[in-house]
């Protein structure tokens, strides 16, 4: 039964991808990309990756679509015909595809418990996490503790990308790109947008609440800083779409966003430094408390909070940078 569902979802993915590449209407391509991300999230869920599915749904179908639309509003909504021949790239792609497909015949089948990937550190993670960290969600344990150094690096990549976008686009005054359509469109004034606004406003508190739940329940169920950051950012972006940039910036001003971005990244680093000061290794949370298990849990909660703050701040700063550009 599950295999039928998986095959169906995977086939839909391929069809959507072909449609995305074929259409010349970039607006349609971006919308299809949202559907593609949602299908991808469903696939991840079928493959037992609940945490990843949550992230992909919030980031791919939510924030990515809004950012692409923002870029389209600033550039062009249609792709022009280019005179180049399509045959050469097609031949290259087909040859490469044949080569990689040939390579897949050496791969272990899906779900094979004896595959090399399941032999190395993964069994250790699964068997030792209850003893060393004592939280149910092993994904959070690996992310926060075992591979905490790696996650720190990822946070700094997100941080750097956010700074670079601000350098390129500037974080000027609030724009009206996503607020209300020009007068000639809204013949009936705001009446036309009443229902989405009312329902949206009703839902936003629950979206933020769900984001906080995902943040703080991340040790017990699917969740954590990356997912929560994306969900909360999506909630605030929804507010900006409904009520206009200005209102969103009044609720969460740019200075607050900067504090979140820098504070989040700093909090993560500081936890590592405090670990060193208390006699452990960098990001070795066991020394944070007299009981090493409690220390690990405390460390994970702190760094997840740092990740959540940084991701929310960066995603919202990027969104505001695109929105502000429209009027600049």
């Amino acid at each position, binding site marked *: 039964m599950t295999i039928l569902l998986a095959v169906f979802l995977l086939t839909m993915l391929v069809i959507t991808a072909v449609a995305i*590449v074929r259409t010349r209407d*970039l607006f349609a391509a971006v919308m299809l990309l949202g559907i593609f991300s949602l299908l*991808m999230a469903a696939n991840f869920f079928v493959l037992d990756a609940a945490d990843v599915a949550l992230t992909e749904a919030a980031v791919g179908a939510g924030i*990515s679509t809004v*950012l692409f639309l923002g*870029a389209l509003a600033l550039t062009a909504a249609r792709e022009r015909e280019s005179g*180049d021949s399509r045959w050469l790239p097609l031949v290259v792609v087909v040859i490469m595809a044949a080569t990689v497909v040939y390579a897949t015949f050496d791969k272990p089948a899906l779900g094979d418990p004896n595959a090399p990937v399941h032999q190395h550190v993964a069994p250790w993670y699964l068997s030792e996490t209850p003893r060393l960290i004592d939280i149910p*969600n092993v994904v959070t344990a690996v992310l926060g503790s075992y591979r905490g150094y790696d996650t720190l690096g990822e946070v700094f990549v997100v941080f750097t990308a956010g700074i670079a976008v601000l350098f390129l686009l500037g974080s000027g005054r609030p724009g009206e790109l996503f607020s209300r359509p020009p007068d000639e469109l809204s013949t009936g004034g705001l009446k036309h947008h009443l229902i989405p606004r009312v329902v949206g406003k009703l839902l936003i508190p629950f979206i933020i609440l769900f984001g906080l739940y995902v943040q703080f329940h991340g040790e017990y169920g699917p969740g954590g800083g990356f997912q929560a950051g994306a969900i909360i950012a999506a909630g605030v972006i929804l507010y900006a779409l409904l009520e206009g940039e200005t209102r969103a910036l009044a609720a969460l001003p740019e200075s607050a966003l900067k504090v979140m971005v820098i504070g989040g990244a700093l909090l993560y680093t500081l936890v590592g430094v405090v670990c060193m000061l208390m006699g452990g290794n960098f990001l070795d949370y066991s020394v944070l408390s007299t009981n090493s298990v409690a220390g690990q849990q405390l460390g994970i909660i702190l760094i997840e909070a740092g990740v959540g703050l940084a991701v929310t701040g960066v995603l919202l700063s990027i969104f505001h940078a695109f929105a502000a550009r429209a009027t600049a």
Partner: protein
Amino acid sequence: MQLLGLYNYWVFVVLLMIGFYAVIAKSNLIKKLIGLSIFQAAVFLLYISMDKVEGGTAPIIQAGVPDQIYSNPLPQVLILTAIVVGISTMALGLAIVVRIKEAYGTIEEHEAAAMDSEA
């Protein structure tokens, strides 16, 4: 069954190549970025396909079920962070495209290149 066991990888290859085709064959810069994000999603699918264990469930330890099989948490951690990093770098790409549009008045690669060779 054996063939279905490789279906995930074939879909990965096809998606990878669709994304790659968009990157090399399309002249429109936004379309290139869309292709790149399909390419990226294909790599995510490859990693997540490898985490699956037959009869397993999501790697959240259930108390009182000692014999439960869990899927591999490691690829999930890698992809979880990669998705958020991916959207940040994609935003950076879009920001560069916006600046190219402002500088050249076009987001078609061949038109911008033609302007460069004229100047």
